[in-house]
């Protein structure tokens, strides 16, 4: 196939996919995520579906804890090494930076910030959560390796707080992702956050912080709730 033919073919396909986009107005998929055919360098034609080719199509599974003393020991290690994802969702994230300063110093409790969801096991939902951010929160949460913990910071995550009647924020975080520890207040001080970490540590040591399994168990219910509020659902259901 000559280069000119290739170009013709490509532009033809592009026009086709653009027409697809125009026809399906209800679909929120972006043009680059459309199901389409691509000409490979050797001239063969490949069908690709970006939304599903790059992601897992398997539901999360429940991971049973190990037995007795082994799990207790591992839980001790998990509780002494809490890696928090650096993702501030609302105004409460202003309370997190003081924790790395000399005054509060969370490092001495084994709590660290981690830049990527793949390596973190705790997620602080800091304050109000807009529907737009909820979408990102879900994707990030599902990328974190289990066992994972959610700390909900501030009143907004409990009942909506001062944004209870807002058109763009959610009221109860627990409906969309499972929460391990709530820290009430508007805004809670960094000391309250440290207390929250202590509480989370105790839960992990007692073997009660198994919310990742709860999420897997009630996956369909959580997904239904999420889809009810996120109108432009343009991502796969399972995306870790």
């Amino acid at each position, binding site marked *: 196939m000559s280069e000119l033919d290739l170009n013709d073919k490509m532009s033809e396909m592009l026009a086709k996919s653009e027409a697809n986009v125009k026809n399906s107005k209800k679909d929120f998929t972006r043009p680059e995520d459309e199901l389409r055919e691509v000409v490979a360098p050797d001239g063969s034609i490949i069908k690709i579906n970006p939304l599903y080719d790059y992601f*897992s199509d398997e539901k*999360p599974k429940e*991971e049973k804890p190990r037995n007795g003393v082994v799990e207790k020991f*591992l839980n001790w*290690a*998990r509780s*002494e*090494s809490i890696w928090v994802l650096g993702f501030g969702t609302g105004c409460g994230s202003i309370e997190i930076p003081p924790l790395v*300063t*000399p005054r509060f*110093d969370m*490092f*001495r409790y*084994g709590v*660290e910030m981690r*830049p*990527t969801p*793949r*390596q973190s*096991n705790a997620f602080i939902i800091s304050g109000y959560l807009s529907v737009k951010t909820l979408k990102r929160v879900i994707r990030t949460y599902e990328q974190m*390796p*289990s*066992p994972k913990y959610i700390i909900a910071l501030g009143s907004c995550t409990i009942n909506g707080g001062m944004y209870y009647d807002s058109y763009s924020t959610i009221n109860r975080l627990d409906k969309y992702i499972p929460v391990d520890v709530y820290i009430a207040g508007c805004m809670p001080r960094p000391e309250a956050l440290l207390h929250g970490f202590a509480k989370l540590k105790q839960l992990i040591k007692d073997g009660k912080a198994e919310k*990742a399994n709860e999420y897997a168990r009630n996956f369909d219910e959580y997904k239904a709730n999420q889809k009810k509020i996120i109108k432009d659902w343009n991502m796969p259901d399972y995306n*870790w």
Partner: protein
Amino acid sequence: MDITSKLIYALIGLLIVVNWGMLMSVTFRKIGARMAGRHGIPFRQPWVNLLKNISTRTIITHGYMYYLGPVFRLSGGIGIFLFMPMVFTGNADGLWTNFSFQGDLILILYFQVFGMLGMAMGSGEGGHPYSAMGVARGLAQHAAVELPLTIAILAIAVQFDTFSIYKIVEAQQGGFQNWVLFTNPFASAAIILAMLGALGHSPFNLVKAPNEILIGPATEYEGTYLGFMMSAGAIIHVMEAVLFMNLIFGGATSWIELIIKSFLIYFWSVFVGMVFPRFKIEQSVIWFFKWPLGFAIIGLLMASF
């Protein structure tokens, strides 16, 4: 010495090196914290982190090379260890010389790149854009570090007429005036400066560059993979320090001496890192091609004529 007891001693040595590397890394974090007026992480933290990472329940994969990246890195570290004479006992086939042989210096230089290339391929398969950026920066900087380092090591090899680390250490025995640091100061200066790049702390830490490109090549790695990489990092840090100790600081005659010397060598890079902020990639490459390379060439000429 028969192969079995040699293997047993090598495994004991590896255990010491892994733990010493972790202790060094936590001391580095502690010093950073104290400079900022904090308490910093507890001393047990690296071991707890390792245990936590290994006990992660879910683990995802991106393909075969993604699996092999950390394995390559760990085997690169262990490879350096296996062929490095750790403690000089006056016997080339002694307790802690591991599997050192005639020409091990070349093999060790190769193993330094081996782990890095493995990581580059593994994190490339991870597919995260920041991994690719970290890898590109890492390889560019490594090439810039390797050139002065290799020329300086060549100068030492010419000076003692051997590629065996054991013989280089043997030639430096009998007092500090015999160290390469004093017999060939220019090659030593090149190595001491290139060491900063090889150990990868600030100002040459733009490969990982926390807060800028997440953590570079390791962005997609989690759980056991990350645990592998943490232990590999601990081994490589100690082994780099031991390599430079053997080359220019006269080696060690006991484990205590090894620990003191490798500590001081490692902390040369830490102290520089505490003072100087991160270089950009073009700055660091130009820097390595300027000072260390110049010193290395003068050192090579000094050794040759």
